[in-house]
Structure formats: C-alpha cells, structure tokens
C-alpha cells in the first residue's frame, strides 16, 4: 500500500463534497475489496473517505412492500434479517454462499455491488488488461480462463465474470440503486447498474465517479413465490461461483405463474435470463420445460478455451434450482 490521506465522512453531503474536491479519492465501506486492491497496487487513492459512520445501516419495509436496504448494511446482517430470510430467501442464501463469515461481517451492500472482477490478469497488475489499462488488450481471452471468466456478455475486449453472489439474487428479485452526488439523488435500475464490457470494459458501473450509493431498494416480494440460490464450485465453500442460479417461482397448481431467473459466474454482469423466463411463463413445472429453459438461457453463450464446461454447468444449476422450488 502506498501512502494516502484519510477522512472520515460525518454526513453524506460531506462525503460527496470531499470526494469531488479531490482528484484521486476512494470511498471506504467494508474495505474487503478496496483494501485488497490497494494492497495489490491496482488502485492508488490519494484520499480515502471512510463512509462507515454515515447513518446508512437501516433495513426498512416501505409502504408499497418494497424493502429499502442502507448501503452500509453488512452482508451478514442482511443475510440473517428476518424479512430477507422469509420473503427473499434467494438473497439470504446467495449472501451466505459468498466469501466467508468474517468477510461478510465487513462487506457491505453498497460495497458488494461495486465489487471488482477476479480475473488474474486484471489483478496481477502486469498483464495486458483493458479494464486496468484501456487499450492494452485482454490477456484472458487466449490465456488461462477456466474459473473466473464468463461465457455470457463477453466481448473481444474483456471476458471477466462478475464475482458477486448477492448481485445475482438482486438481479432476479429486481431492485433499484439509489445514488447521490454533486447533482443530487437518482435511482438506477439494478439491471442497468452493471455494464457489459463491450468496447469499454473499463466502464463497469452506471454510477458516475463522484456518486455514492446510499441504499438499494428491492422490488416487493412476489406473492406466493418460493426462491432459492444454488452455487456450484470446486470446493465446498469460500470460492467464487463457477456457475450459480438464482430462481424465484410462483406456482398455480403445477403451472408456473411467475418466474425470475438470474445467473452468476457465467456472465460479465449479474445475468438475468429473460428468454428462459418467458419460455417458462404459464407452462407446466416439469423437468422437460426446465431443461428447455436452461438451454434457452445459455443459447447465446460463447465458450473460451478452458470454460466451456460452464455452459452445461449453468444449465444444471438452473434445472436443479427449478426442481428444488417446484418439488412438493
């Protein structure tokens, strides 16, 4: 870690103002990703603005049944919150499948959304990487790309997969991200928050540089729905997803009335499987339909040298989550 200055923000306005006054500032929330990257010398903030003591740690049910989550609510608190466990099981399970108990105690909701990719060529601070050094090239496309590289939403500029589990659940649930900046507050649809790499892989978030996430509001839970998250990986815990599936299903008898499906580990952003959802809507809940939906979800997938297995693996995750949710 290089040297930097430190400022503790006492108010949101002060945090935003301090940020805009300084050219190379970073907000510090849980620090589990930021300090990791500062240690790797990947980012070199000259000023760290600590937002931990802003009053952004409430979870509240709004009148319209949506759930408002403060940006500084930790992953542990969120995962174990009664309302999340009960109404948003998929989110609780996704959170608890991520990282480790200790890390979840520090990692925050806002920080998790801002998590950077795990691509080793990004993190080694040496290889060609369009995210780190725009225009330098992508070392992963022809390099080692088994575990933390995507098959959906990739471009010839970047193939790093999005690392978060929480975000996959949120993509399935539907949410909005409220941010604040010098020009005031605004809401960003969660599904638009993370950007595809396209021709500009260094642009990862719809957030402007000087904006701060204040909270995330989940869509109201779907009446009568069940939800679950399944994460597949090499070892049993403490590993980023090779493929994961977040599913929410409401049945009417054996007919799928509502379904939401999102994928992790395989997309360059939390991946909502719209086409698969459309196909399943109104159909009988059976394995044939689930397998068909899984094929549709991955039909645009593009495999790279070492990660072709992620296509069938993600399909398996989809099928198993749907089976689990629709079993009696």
């Amino acid at each position, binding site marked *: 870690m290089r040297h930097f200055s430190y400022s503790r923000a006492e108010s949101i306005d002060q945090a935003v103002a301090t940020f805009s006054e300084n050219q190379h500032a970073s907000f510090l929330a849980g620090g589990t990703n930021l300090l990791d990257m500062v240690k790797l010398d990947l980012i070199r903030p000259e000023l760290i603005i600590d937002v931990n003591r802003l009053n952004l740690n409430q979870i509240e049910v709004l009148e319209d049944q949506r759930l408002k989550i403060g940006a500084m609510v930790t992953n542990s608190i969120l995962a174990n919150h009664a309302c999340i466990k009960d109404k948003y099981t998929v989110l609780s399970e996704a959170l608890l499948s991520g990282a480790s108990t200790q890390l979840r105690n520090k990692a925050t909701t806002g920080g998790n959304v801002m998590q950077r990719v795990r691509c*080793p060529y990004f993190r*080694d601070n040496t290889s060609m990487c369009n995210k780190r050094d725009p225009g330098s090239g992508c070392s992963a496309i022809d*390099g*080692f790309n088994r575990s933390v590289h995507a098959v959906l939403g990739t471009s010839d500029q970047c193939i790093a997969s999005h690392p978060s589990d929480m975000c996959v659940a949120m993509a399935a649930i539907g949410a909005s991200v409220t941010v604040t900046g010098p020009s005031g507050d605004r809401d960003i649809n969660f599904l638009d928050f993370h950007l595809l790499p396209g021709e500009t892989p260094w642009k990862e978030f719809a957030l402007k540089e000087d904006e701060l996430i204040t909270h995330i509001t989940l869509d109201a839970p779907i009446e009568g729905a069940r939800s679950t998250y399944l994460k597949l990986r090499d*070892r049993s815990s403490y590993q980023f997803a090779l493929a994961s599936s977040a599913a929410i299903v409401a049945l009417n008898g054996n007919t799928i009335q509502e379904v939401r499906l999102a994928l992790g580990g395989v997309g360059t952003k939390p991946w909502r499987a719209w086409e698969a959802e459309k196909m399943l809507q109104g159909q009988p809940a059976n394995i044939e339909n689930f397998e068909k939906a899984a094929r549709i979800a991955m039909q645009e997938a593009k495999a790279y040298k070492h990660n*072709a297995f992620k296509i069938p*693996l993600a399909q398996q995750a989809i099928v198993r989550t749907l089976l689990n949710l629709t079993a009696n």
Partner: protein
Amino acid sequence: MSEMIIGAAKPRIDGPAKLTGQARYSSDNNLTGMAHAYGVFSTIAHGKIINIDTSLAKQSLGVIDIFHHDNFPDLYHTPSMMEQENKVEEIRLPFEDNHIYYAGQFVALVVADTFENARAAAYKVRVDYQAYSAIANLEQGLEHGDLQMQEKTQHSRGNPEQAYQTAKHTIDATYRTPVETHNPMEMHATVAAWQGDHLTMYDTTQGVVNARNVYAKVFGLSPDQVTVLTPFLGSGFGGKLWPWPNAIAAAGAARAVGQSVKLVVPRQEMFTTTGHRPETRQRLRLATNEDGKLVSVRHDSISTTSVINKTGSYVELCGGMTKALYSCQNLSVTHGITYVNRGTPTSMRAPGAASGLFALESAMDEMANTLGMDPLEFRLLNYANQDESQDLPWSSNHIRDAYAQAAEQFGWAKRNAKVGSMHDGNEIIGWGMDSCNWEAIQYGCDARVAFREDGTVFASCGTQDIGTGTYTIVAQVLSDLTGLPLDKIEVQLGDSSYPSGPISGGSWATATTLPAIAKAGRKAIETLKKYAILSGGSFPKAKTEDLIYEHGQLSDKKGKTVHFMEVLKARRLASAEGEAHTNGAHTDKFSFRSFGAHFVEVRWDPGISRLRVSRVVSAIDAGRAMNKLTSRNQIEGSIVMGIGMALFEQTEYDPRDGRPVNNNFAEYLVPVHADQPEIDVILLDYPDYNFNEFGARGLGEIGITGIAAAIANAVFHATGKRIRELPITLDKLMDIVA
C-alpha cells in the same frame, strides 16, 4: 508408568503457548531498532534486468536503502551438500546478477523504518526487463529438447520388456500431476540480527542446524558465528527444509544497513520463490498373467526442474515406492528431468511417493478392472514378501493387516463392483481403495539431557517441532525414562546451538531424535550416580553400579533413597547432564518402510456435477505411534492435504510466458472446513524394533501417499471416468459438447 506414557494420547506440552498467542513464530519477533524489508519480484519468467530505477522509491518515506544486483553485498555459494548439512535448493544467491530465471524471483529489496513504508516504496521501484521466451511447462521443456535421464536413480530387474510382450493382460497409461505448492499457513519469514560478526536468524526452517551451516557458508563465517532459532514453525511440508533466497536477502541487507531486518515473503511469492512439488508425467506399463499376478512393471517418469539450477537439480523420484511395494520379478523405474522457467522445486510432503503412487495405484486399479478382480484381492495377490529391489526382508510389514482392518471398518465387502451402481438420492456413490507406502529413515543425532536442582529434567536438541508434536514425544520419552510427570520435563528445540539434531522432514525426525534423547537421558542418570558417590555426596561410600535410579530417586542396596534434587544439592550442583550421539539405522539387514491402506467414498451428483469426498478410512502401519493424539492428527491432516491434491490443487502457469496465474489463496484452492469428510484412522501400532528401540518409523508422509489414487479410483467407480491428470475437477467429469 512406562506402559502408560509412551504412546499415550497426551495433549501437546507446547499447546498452551500456541493457544494463548504467546508462542513466538519467526515473524513475531520485534527487535528494538529493527527495520522492515519488502521485496520487489520479477514480473517476467525469463530474461534480464536492463535497468532498475530506484530514484522515486528512495525518496519515499522512511526508506533506509534499496538493494539489487548492482549493490547487494558479495556473498559465497554454499556447497549445498546433504552430508555436510548445508543444503539449499536454489544455489544462486539473491541479486547475484541481472538474470531472470523465473517469475517471482527477487529483483530488489527495500529496507525502511516500517513495514508500511517498505511496502509503499517497493511499489515505486521501476524495473525494466528484456524478456526472452520462457519454457512454461513440462511439454515445452521436452519440446525444447531438454531431457536428462537420472541414471543413478534407476532400478531394473528381470526383463520387463519381454515379460510385457508375452503377458496375458497389459495396461499402458500415462498420468500427470501438476505443480503443487506447500503453502504452509506461516509465510517464510526472517528476522536477521547482527551483533558484530555474529548473525542471529529468527528463521522459518525445518532444519535449524542445516540453516545455520548454510548461512555460515554464504557469509563466510564459522558455524559458531551463526545462531538459527525456530522454536515454533507455522509448518513447512518440505517447503522450509532448505533456506531460500529471502532469508539470505534479509541477512545480507541487515548487515549492510547495520540494523536488524524483518522480511516476510508475501503469500503471492510463496508460489514462486520458496519451492513447489514439480509437475510430472508418468507412464505406467503393467502386465499380469492369467491369474492376475504381476509379471512386468515399468514406471517411467519425467519431472520438471528449474533452469536456475542445472547442477544438483531437484528430481521427483516417482518410482521410489514402485520398486518394492508389490512383488514382480521384471521391473524397471526411470526418472528424467526437464528444465523450465519456474522457481526451484523441492520436496513436498511424501516427495516422489505422493506423485508416484497416484500413477502406480491408479494403474493397479485399472488392471484390477481389466482382470475383473476386486482391487483389494488384486493387491493381496501381489503382496511382496520382501523388498525385491534390495533383496532384503522387511523390518516390519503389516500391510495385509492394514487392508483387512480398513476394509472391515469401511464396509468394503458391501461394495457393488459395477460402475455407477451405488446410489443415494441424487448422488452416485463411488468406493475406491489403494495402498500407501513410504520409506523409513533414521539418521545420526546428538542430544543433551540434564537433571536439574529444581527437580526438573531438561532436554535440548537441535531439531524442531514443525507442528508434528516433537516437543511432546520427547517429553514422553523422558517421562518414561525418568519416571517423572510431564510437567517436570522441559524440552527445548529449534535452536542451532543445541546438540545437532535432524531436519524435520522425510518422516525421520521421530526415529532419529528419540533414541538420542533416551541415550542422553540414560547418560544423565549415570552422571547423577557419579555425583552421588563423590565425597560429601548422597552415597559417598557406594559404587555407581550399586545405585538404582527409579522415579526420580537413587537408592542403594540397603534401601536408602534420595531424590535427585537432594543428590545435586548435597554437592551444590546445578545439574547432572548426559550428552549422547546415536547413529542412523543399519540398512544392510532390513528394508525399512511404512505401509497402509486407504478406503475412500466419493459422492458424485451428476445433476449438478458436484464431486465430494464423503468418507475415508485409513489403516496405517508406521511402527509405534508415540502419541496417539498427535499421530492420528498427522494422518488425518495428510488425508486432508491429499484431498486437496486429488481434487483442487494446481499452480497454473501461463503457457505463453511462464508466469503463475493463480498464485493466491483465493484461486489456488486448498481444502476448507466444509470439504472435511468423515475420517477414521486406524493406527496399527506394531512397534518396529528392528528399526529403533522405540519401534517408531515416523508419520509425516505416509498418510498422503496413495490418497489421490484412492480418490481417483472411487471416482472411476462412481462415474466410469478414469481421470489420469490431477486435479480431478468437475469439468473433467462432465460430458461437454463443445
């Protein structure tokens, strides 16, 4: 008491220190006036440094000095001879020249007042390289035309080629194992302190005496001028057997700046500059007659070694166990090496055997399947009555008992041999088994034991406890010998100034150290008797042979009994000491090996491609278990590491430039708590008195040998897929339509 204490499941005597945070590991030493060092590591795998720009770094806060090939002090090479106990794997000194042989090689060292300032400045050192093409892996090494056959390590008997040609059943298969890294939880660390011409190293070593001798050679000093201290080691698994460049860099920098220096190797570079288990490619050709009796075995292996060290290169002896584990009259093993741009490989837990038995025991399973024979029956059929490679009887071999007990405990008889036939819900269950094997070695050792006037017994030896429980079993031996309780016995290890003890490696520390401790203890009793008969002593008129030592007391024939404290006090003596040397085991009468068997259950959920090891039963024949608690723990831990080897572990190098890709604990996967299967370890506990007076052969390696193949064999039983390349990751088990 003696029956009770040897082998008893006693908690570790060093436990409270470890459990309260009071045990000082090397990097826990904070000396007054100590500076901190941080390394700069090569980002290319092959080439040379054309410029190092330290101007920005030198202006950084708190920087004391920055070292690199242009200004690091000139030092000497160590001869690196095992028999002189001054061995290293990487003979080249840090910063010796501007050549780069591997990624992660030290290219500069920043010394600053604080850790934070050293690291911040290290990031500001700019190194310009001229990169050459790198040899990134074994296949590239062979393509490069480098294959050195290691004639001295070959073994051949009978005519395996001819026997193979005429045999009824044959198997010809090639197996591969990747680079694995030791990654003990404690990173390599050194606090180097000079007082005039005396160097003190708070070091992370599995061999304080060897390390002392190395530093003496490197700095041109007498061994008396160097002290190496490792009272606690955060384990090593072979990675800390021999000193690495980091320690020499720290000591060289400390002398140059005139301050003590602490240097800790970052986790990322624990994958590059502190050794690894090399990559191997192994061809196994087995042949049997109609009944399943082996008639030909050929095991030809090639392993990678580093271009940095073309003399005295490390060789992975994959065929070491194959020579004698089974009976076969026609057999050959060969070892070749090829050079790659990686750091130097070194011994990692059960070197040769862990890799070699993956191949041999997988091939044995393949042959059993070919024969349609139960793999356990097949092994029993090929039991070796003696070591056929040396034509010597086994000192003690209970492998058939290991098979029987483990099979019984596991429930092997209930196995349905048909592939994929055993189910539990969504999961297919696979059962596999195999043998384990490791050589037993005992070297010479010195030790000192003293009865002290305060009523305690003190033992010291220049070996170390790397987590295996050496402190505790030394105390148990002395408790047995002296009849004193464990809390009256103080054991000190991990200091090179103590009588010369063994490195903790190869499972030989126990067998080597304990006889010397016992001999020194007996000598101390004799000394006590001599002091007792001095005039003014407790038994002034007695002869030593008339005195009997028992339970801390001397007594004569008349029944007079005096505690040793009083014996010493009578002559105002502080202590009665004994120092002893014991020789290594004679290897001309017996072949000494440890044996065992693993039985493994895996669960494969084909619907989500999830593979887990769910149950392991292992029976281990390693002679006497000196402490049931720590012995069992050693084997259980070996099995866990073996699960890592089988399913997860693989250091990846980019084939384009030879740089490591997953050199961190998030991407190089080792087993975590959630991967822990149900493990049952059976310690057969047959003392091997042909080996030493305690009958103990050592336990560090045996448990990891064979485990990877037992898992691979179980995976085959579940899935019908024979995975010949470790690790067995889920993608290798999936039917992927590209």
